Each structure stands twice: as structure tokens, then as C-alpha cells.
């Protein structure tokens, strides 16, 4: 089962999940690596072998009582593939893949605009998405009046089962929107290049990195592989080494990496990292073309 949770605010009521809180949150290892008030994506396995997704930095056209733009955050949780029942679930997960892909386009669009503007101080700014297709679609589903009502019910703890069911149905219908399934279909082909690296990072500016990342997201959501897909907005390539330990598969897009170069291996942390990564690669039978890092070249 796929469950979607939305966090937003209205004119006067502060940020809160609409009617219900997600049962879990993301792990603490991304602390210091992303500011969730700016675009961030965390897609990771849950302890129950399901998937947890967190997506932030989605702008709404609504404004708060101070005139400040409001944003959305989305959390999705899905059961383990073993316990899923049939093609409906698969359809929701395809919709979720399309949604993430659309979100990534919004984020990239905002970054490209910053680059085109050429303002020095904009270049050091964390991505701030002003216009977003995903935001528009959310605004259509969650109208201003409906959000006001839901948040009032939430803060008053006055929601009925009926209110929850209505919201659930709206969100499920939202996931099955043609826009998302159409977006998904672009990645529904096995002919596209997959990233041969197990643990890799790429800049959000680079087309190939983004294509490979979405492809990886799709495989994670559809239960075809294991690992984590992240888009982080503070982390630098150098600060990712801690991720090299205990991760079987990892694809990270870095919002502050402006280079156009293709994906790169995440360098492991210390000797233990090298050994662990070697064991993981061996067990997973990673393509033989991969080279183990040359220790002699490692800087000390």
C-alpha cells in the first residue's frame, strides 16, 4: 500500500501534516547535508523492507498572513513488495516515480534560471523554486479553502474517519494523474543507460546524472533494486564519504554541484570503508569494468 502525507501551512496555521502524521521519519545521517526547507529528496528503505520518501521545496501559489509564499513537503511510504497486491499498487508507485521526476525538473528549472540571471549572490543561494508544475498540480487538488479546513481540523484534533478517507482518496487520485504516469513512461524502457557505479554522486546540472538518478529512483520504488536515492542541497562531494559505509546502493544528486561532469564514485572513508565497499561490490557482482580505488594515489 502506498500512503501519501502532505505538510503545508495556511494563512495563520503553521506547518503541519494534513490530518495525519507519517509513521516514520528519515534517518539522522543526512543531518548537516541538506536544508529541508529547500529542495531535498530522500528515498530510503524502511526497517520493514518498504520504502520511505521525503520530498521538499515545492512552492504553492498560496501565501501566509505575512504575504510569504507557502510550500509543500511530501512524504510517501510503501509496503514491502512481498506484501503488495497486484497492479494497482504498481500504478501508484509508477505515479510516484513520475512525481519525483516532475519535481526534479522544477528544481533544475529554478537552478538554470539562477545561472541565466548570472547574479553572483544567487549562485551561492540554495535552490529556491518559485514556479513549479508539481506545485500547481498540488494547488489544484488542495485548494486554499480545503487546506484551511484540513489544518483547522488538524490543530483542533477534530477530524473524522470520513475526513481522512476523503483526503486519502484525493491523494491517491492525485498520484494517478496522467501527468505523472506520462512522466513515468519516459523512463519505462530498459534501453536507457544505468549507472554502473554502486555508490555515486552527480551534479543536478548534468543531464546524464539526472536521467540515471530517476532511473535508479524507479528501480527502488518498483522493488527492482535496493539502496537510497538522495538529492541534497548542502552536501559537497567531499562530505559524502560517510555514506560509503553500510550502503549497498546509493545515488546522490548534489544541488550545489554546478559542474557539468558526469557521475562519480563516492570515495570511501578510511580503510574500513574501502574493505566494506569491496565486500559489497563482490557480493553484488558489480560489473567487472569497475576499478577498485588505487590506494597508492589516495592523499594522506
Amino acid at each position: 500500500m502506498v500512503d501519501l502525507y502532505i505538510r503545508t501551512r495556511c494563512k495563520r496555521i503553521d506547518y503541519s501534516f494534513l490530518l495525519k502524521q507519517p509513521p516514520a521519519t528519515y534517518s539522522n545521517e543526512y543531518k548537516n547535508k541538506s536544508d529541508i526547507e529547500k529542495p531535498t529528496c530522500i528515498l530510503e528503505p524502511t526497517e520493514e523492507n518498504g520504502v520511505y520518501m521525503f520530498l521538499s521545496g515545492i512552492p504553492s501559489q498560496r501565501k501566509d498572513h505575512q504575504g510569504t509564499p507557502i510550500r509543500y513537503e511530501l512524504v510517501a511510504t510503501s509496503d514491502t513488495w512481498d506484501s503488495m497486491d497486484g497492479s494497482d499498487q504498481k500504478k501508484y508507485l509508477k505515479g510516484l516515480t513520475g512525481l519525483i521526476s516532475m519535481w526534479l525538473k522544477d528544481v533544475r528549472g529554478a537552478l538554470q534560471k539562477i545561472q541565466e540571471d548570472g547574479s553572483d549572490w544567487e549562485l551561492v543561494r540554495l535552490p529556491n523554486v518559485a514556479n513549479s508544475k508539481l506545485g500547481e498540480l498540488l494547488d489544484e487538488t488542495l485548494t486554499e479553502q480545503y487546506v484551511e479546513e484540513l489544518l483547522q481540523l488538524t490543530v483542533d484534533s477534530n477530524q473524522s474517519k470520513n475526513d481522512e478517507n476523503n483526503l486519502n482518496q484525493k491523494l491517491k487520485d492525485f498520484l494517478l494523474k496522467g501527468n505523472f504516469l506520462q512522466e513515468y513512461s519516459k523512463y519505462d524502457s530498459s534501453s536507457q543507460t544505468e549507472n554502473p557505479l554502486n555508490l555515486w554522486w552527480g551534479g543536478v546540472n548534468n543531464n546524464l546524472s539526472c536521467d540515471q538518478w530517476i532511473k535508479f529512483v524507479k528501480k527502488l520504488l518498483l522493488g527492482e533494486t535496493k539502496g537510497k536515492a538522495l538529492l541534497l542541497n548542502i552536501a559537497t562531494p567531499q562530505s559524502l564519504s560517510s555514506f560509503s559505509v553500510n550502503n549497498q546502493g546509493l545515488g546522490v544528486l548534489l544541488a550545489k554541484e554546478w559542474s557539468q561532469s558526469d557521475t562519480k564514485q563516492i570515495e570511501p572513508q578510511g580503510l574500513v570503508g574501502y574493505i566494506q565497499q569491496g565486500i559489497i561490490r563482490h557480493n553484488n557482482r558489480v560489473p567487472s569494468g569497475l576499478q577498485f580505488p588505487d590506494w597508492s594515489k589516495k592523499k594522506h
Partner: protein
Amino acid sequence: MEINFDNYASNEAKKIFYKIGLIGPSRVGKTSIIAALLDEAQVALAGTPVSIKPFVDSDGNSPTKDRIRNTILDIKAGLDFSSFQPTGMGTADPFIFDLVMTIAGGNEEKNQAQLRFTILDYPGGWLEKPPQGDIGQQTWGKCKKWIEESSVIIVPIDANLIMEVNNQETRKASLELLEVEEVKDLVRDWAKGRITMGESGLLLLVPVKCETYFNDNGGDNDKSEELYKSICNFYSDVIKAVEQEMSVKEEEPEEIPQSTDFIGKFKKDMSKVLISKPSKPPSYSIEYHPVDTIGCIELANANWEENINGQLSLNCEYLVRNPGNSQPELKRFGNIGLLNSICKQIVENRQNSRIFTRLWDWFFDKNKLLADAINMLSQQKPEPRFKEIAKGNIAKKG
């Protein structure tokens, strides 16, 4: 990202966390205060070897630096040549601003003692309605604990919401938007926490968006007295709550139990030695520090508007003062007074807390320059806008 509160749990060798709590509603401008404070502190410490800056972790990441930089850039993005549009994002999760005061440069920078000002921010809406679910409740519990352990509490206040009140209805809306009742409850909990710990406490009432009401930073109108009186009026219950909880009461003469057994007598004698009285009794102060976090703007229009639920909110329009053909410069004012008061409080804590005394003595021995900087800042003459609302010794525990 979710905060690991444990990272700030203890003071260990070479680093001391000085906890500060923020208690204010959402969208009041909490991050702007921190950004302005850091900016003015850097100016105040210019020319000295001491610096105060966002803490950077071993991976080279600094969420504090990014958030402060973004706040400044968001403000700049909202400022065009003639007007200002409120920008910013609002807080959806707790965040700790981690500022480090240290000696700049030197080969042994990593081994130097650090004073870390750690300021907890969280969604203002939690004051009225704490987050639901196990995770939310746990997080809110940790935030409350942090506040109770903080020596200094900053209460940011939107000055426009105070000054633009024009009838009973808008006064009610202002009190709700400022969440004064909820602020009072949390401040009371903090005061109780101070008494339990036997440590001094400082409550800072910090009106923000004050540009329109002072004539000392480029403005023409002086409504400063009106602002001060209105804030004392709006926050009278908050001030009373602190005084009720913290002001010293008549002390009962201590009963000395007649103990005849040797072990009991030994324990009592030892406890007298171990729990010797600190040099100065703990105290509390409530201070008033109006600040300009932007400085170059002025309120042009303020209209109370009703939302679809019939609730009032204040819609403000700002104009840039003396508009020209270039990007207006930020002209912050009053924020250094906050740092001076915090440093004064650090010295105060040292004088009245056994644990603080021990830590600080060690710390000051290790890094005389830092101690000098704190002393220097603590002894600065208060700014003209500053007012002391209340002060006294803290009541004895129990």
C-alpha cells in the same frame, strides 16, 4: 534535517555549548534576528583576534551558515529599489543555529577551546498546537527540555502587530498571532527550570520590524515610548509569570535535623563541603531590546484582512527609505545589544553556578583571549533603545 539533540547534550573538553531558546510565533523573523546578530557581532569583534561565525562540521558542512546566508539573500531578493516584499520560507522543523566563538587563525585552531552559542528554533505553530504522533511528541519534548535548560530566552515580537492595533477585535487578533498566552506558559516552564537548576536566567523581549517606530536609524517618526508601553502591556502576563516564579520569597529558617548517628553526621558535614554556596545568588532579568533587522525600509500600509475562516491577519506593505537607483543596503540596528546581554549573562552564570564556575574557570584558563572578549562584550554600555523591565534574585528552590 532532524536534529540530533544529543550532540548538544554535554559540555566536554574544549567546547562549551551555551544554550539559548527562542519562543515566538511563526513568521516573526527569528532567523533574521540571528543573521543580524551575527552580522553586528562580526563588526563589533573586527580588529580583535576573536571571531564569531557559524560552526562548520568535520565534513566542511554548515547548515547554520547556509540558512543564515539564505535568509540574508532572501531579504535582499525581496528588496527592490523602492519596495520590500516579505520573503523567506518559514520553519517546518526544529533547527539549531550553531555559532562558534573562537580565536581566528593559528596552527592549533582545531584544538582550541570553543564557545558554541546554540540557539534552538522550531515552528512557532507548535506553541499553540504541538506536533502529533510519537515522533512529533518526542521532538517537541526535546525542544521543551532545551528551553528549560537555556540560560537565555529570546522572545521575538512583531512590532507591527502591536502598533497597528486599532480596536478590540484587532487587539484580540494580535494576541492570537503573537501567541502571547502560549509564550507565557512556555516562559513559565523555563522559569521553573531555572529555579530547579539554581541558575540565573535572562529573558529578552525583542521587538522586530521596528524601523517605522524609531528615528535613530534613518526614520523620521519616534513612537518608541508608545511601542515600549504597548509591549509591556501586551506581555504583562509573561512578565508577571517570570516574576511570580522567580522573584525571591521570604526564606524559612533552615531546620537542622538532630542526627546522632555517625554516618548521618558525616554525610551532612560532607554535603556542606561539597555543596558550598556559590559566590553570588542566582538572579533573573527581563530586558527589552528592539531591533531593526533590515533597517532601510518603512511600513507604508497596514491593513487588517479577514481570511475565509473569519480570522484577522495584518497585511503590511513596505517602502524603501530614500529610494535611489541602486540596490538598498541593509542597515541593521540594535542586535549587538543582544550579544552584549548574552555575554553579561555568561559572566553572571559563571558567578552563581558551581558547574558553570568549574567549566568556565577551566575554559577561561585555556583561552584567555576568549574570556577577555566575553568580558569586553559584557561590559559594553547598553544602547539607547535598551530598557531593563525587571531584575531580582531568584527564589530558593522549594
